[in-house]
């Protein structure tokens, strides 16, 4: 129980700092910490395979890609004069509306969840969800979705290469 609160507070605190940081490099590192805490929660929830995937794919691959781009662009600050003058919550128009919307949504969610909380009860627990069972379902019931995902990743890979390529031909915009 304390483990849940430990991991949850790490995840929420690190996530808050992610959007509060000025330097994107710190944001990336804090997001890795947040994903690590979530991985611990997945182990608590008896999902070791997803926990490992979370570490390997998210914290390992995706965040390193982010860090690579942050360092490649070498644009550590997003500050403009406008940012220096105004606090993030005091900005006009859509930004304030977004913050207001998020606050309202939070209130509604907490209200709904605490009202329904009595009926949801504890976890059923019990049988261990094994990697074997996960693999069996993945390659039988969801084989089509699995193959479609592979095509999606192939397309994304080709698209990323095409977008990031420098085209030296005259008249090209990229």
């Amino acid at each position, binding site marked *: 129980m304390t483990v849940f609160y430990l991991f949850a507070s790490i995840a929420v605190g690190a996530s808050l700092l992610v959007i509060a940081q000025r330097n994107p490099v710190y944001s990336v590192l804090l997001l890795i910490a947040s994903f690590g805490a979530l991985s611990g929660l997945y182990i608590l929830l008896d999902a070791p395979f997803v926990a490992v995937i979370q570490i390997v794919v998210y914290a390992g691959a995706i965040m390193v890609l982010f860090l690579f781009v942050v360092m*490649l662009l070498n644009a550590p600050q997003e500050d403009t004069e406008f940012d220096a003058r105004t606090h993030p919550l005091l900005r006009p128009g859509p930004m304030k509306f977004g913050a207001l919307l998020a606050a309202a949504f939070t209130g509604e969610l907490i209200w709904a969840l605490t009202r329904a909380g009595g009926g949801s009860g504890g976890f059923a627990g019990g049988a261990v969800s094994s990697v074997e069972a996960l693999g069996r379902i993945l390659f039988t019931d969801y084989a089509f979705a699995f193959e479609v995902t592979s095509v999606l990743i192939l397309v994304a890979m080709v698209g990323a290469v095409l977008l990031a390529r420098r085209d030296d031909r005259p008249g090209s915009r990229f």
Partner: protein
Amino acid sequence: MITPTHYMLLSAALFIIGVIGVMVRRNIIIIFMSIELILNAVNINLIAYSYQLQDVIGQVFAVFVIAVAAAEAAVGLGIILAFYRNKETVNIDEMNLMRW
């Protein structure tokens, strides 16, 4: 005692933090990270209910979400790189090529 409600509240908190990040920040890389936070909030719900219902399908869905997030990050960062080569900025206010 930890109930599914706890996990839903954690998931909602991360989702809200992600939404606030998308709305408030103007560095497009931070906005991308906020989107990853939102996807993770979804994953927490899927896995919590996979455990509650003793059904492994929730974990299968979480794996698919992670795969799609990887594809999305690759394409998105490619777009950011291409944009940065043209405009030398990552500020989202400068990205108004498709604004009518």
